[in-house]
């Protein structure tokens, strides 16, 4: 998870320093950035795609561009938000490729693992998260994406809307529908 409370403040401060070095082309920080966020980014990608290999490909692609853009690109916002948005974009692209292959809409595409014989949910998430993973998997992709970017990564709706070129109303609509569906799927756990 991306950090909470006092720990979150420290992380933000460290992020600021990492961004500054990154913007100045100091590639020594890349290892630290990767170590700091790799698990969170892989988790996000897996929760979007439900296929660990494809998810890791998405994270790998993001880091390859991130490394190349060091000193050329200026990150001005949260580093975690920036990377999470990139991973979400990369994951979406991979889903679109799949969409083209199957000639169906993004939200009709089943999670990759359903078709690719990749390991099941238990191989991807710990037992305590199995039901949540299962519920997420039932959501249309776009709703799942908004839920994860907002709740797991902590991105604001405005930021998500901007990164996806959608209106904030559209994003909030996906959030509401997604949340309602999750709630019904997880009824017993949510009410605990």
């Amino acid at each position, binding site marked *: *998870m991306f950090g909470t409370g006092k720990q979150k403040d420290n992380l933000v401060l460290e992020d600021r320093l990492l961004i500054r070095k990154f913007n100045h082309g100091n*590639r020594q920080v890349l290892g630290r950035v990767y170590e700091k966020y790799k698990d969170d980014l892989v988790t996000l990608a897996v*929760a979007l795609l439900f296929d660990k290999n494809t998810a890791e490909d998405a994270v*790998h692609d993001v880091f390859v561009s991130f490394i190349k853009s060091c000193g050329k690109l200026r990150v001005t916002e949260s580093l975690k938000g920036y990377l999470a948005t990139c991973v979400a974009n990369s994951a979406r692209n991979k889903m679109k490729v799949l969409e083209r292959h199957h000639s169906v809409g993004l939200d009709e595409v089943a999670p990759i693992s359903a078709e690719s014989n990749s390991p099941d949910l238990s191989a991807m*998430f710990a037992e*305590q998260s199995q039901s949540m993973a299962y519920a997420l998997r039932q959501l249309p992709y776009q709703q799942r994406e908004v839920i994860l970017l907002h709740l797991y990564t902590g991105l604001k709706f405005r930021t998500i809307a901007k990164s996806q070129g959608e209106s904030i109303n559209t994003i909030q609509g996906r959030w509401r529908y997604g949340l309602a569906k999750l*709630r019904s799927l997880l009824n017993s756990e949510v009410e605990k």
Partner: protein
Amino acid sequence: MRPAENIGKLIKKLHTAASAELDKKVYSEISKALAEDKKSAAVGPSVWRIIMKSKLTKLAAPAVVIVAVLIGVNRFGGSIDVASVALGNVLERIEQSQAFTYRMKMTMTGVMMPGTPSGKRVMDGTVVISNSYGMKMEMTMTDANTGREEMTQQMYVLPDQKVMFMVMPEQKKYTRMEFDDDLLARMKKQNNDPREMVKQIMNCRYTELGRSVIDGVEVEGFRTTDTSFSGGAIEDVNVTLWVDVEQWLPVRTEMDFKMNEQMEMSGVVYDYQWNVQVGASEFEPVIPEDYTAFPTDGMKMPSITEEAAVEGLKFFAEIVGQYPKKLNLINLMQEFSAIKDSEHPTEAALKLREEMKQMQKEENIEKAVDMMRPVQSLGMFYMTLLQDRKDPAYYGDSVLPGDADRVLMRWKISDDQYRVIFGDLTAETVSAQQLAELEKQPGE
């Protein structure tokens, strides 16, 4: 708890670790990128690029300016020549305060060194001074044009230990510098210390501005534009001190300095708090375990002696091929760094460049700092001569290295005696009459 919050908590429990295979792939990309960097570094940036680009230089350049201002502006003055009851009262009241704090904001505008873009940097600082423990300053430097914070640092001056610490949290670095006795004696008396500010104003021609009100406090103003405020080290000076007319303690100090043609500095010292309670622990540098020392850790501050000044002149002439035209600290640094654009570098400059190409980056920084030290010594020595009103003169614009018959620099050491450094860098003590002969221009 609301369902959305519960769902959020459950989602945050999701965790999948990156595989060793992904680690391997990403680190391979990072290694490739770092290898490229190393390769381009091996091509060898010039010594000047290293000096200009190193973090330490970015730190050191403003620091030199600050040191220049600290020493130049607030140096412990000599006897107070001008009687002033009002300012005398202020001084007396300040001296009753064993510990005090204040804040300052300095804005530096212009070109700090040739080849670097003109910029505007704002330094915000909070200072605590204790007669018992020393000085602590926390400072943030911001690029005023972009609003980006460039550096934060904490500085500790510990007179009893004769050391100064600088801690740089962003870099997780610190450095420790030792003073020689001479600089220590001066540092003990300065650091934007309002006592010295008042003494300096009292030593200058100043005007009383009359009453005004600042933040609801009735104040009286004293202004000086006398360049002897900085011992002539700054071209234009405009300093205004506002004191509370009930407490007779400073409320605000405003400063505008034109350092030279390329650089200006303005600042304000405010939020003075008098007789504050401080403990020894506040002045103990906090250096977390994971912080590492700069390669310059333990380096000495520039000496302010005749020998160090001669060494500075010699070094400057070897590298640049001539003596500096002016000994103002800022000019000196600018003139010295201008050599990077020289179409005809000296053999020494070329050799130095070659040496630095062979070195590792860390060694380069060390070398750059070492290199600047004698030049700084020279500037600081001349500045103290000016401030001590020792009738100094410098003729670097017309005297060439090796000119054994010409006075390069001189200053008064007693009523009838002067110390002279000649163009060949030998030094002698001469009488005022002999000096007059030596300084005669041909045909006079």
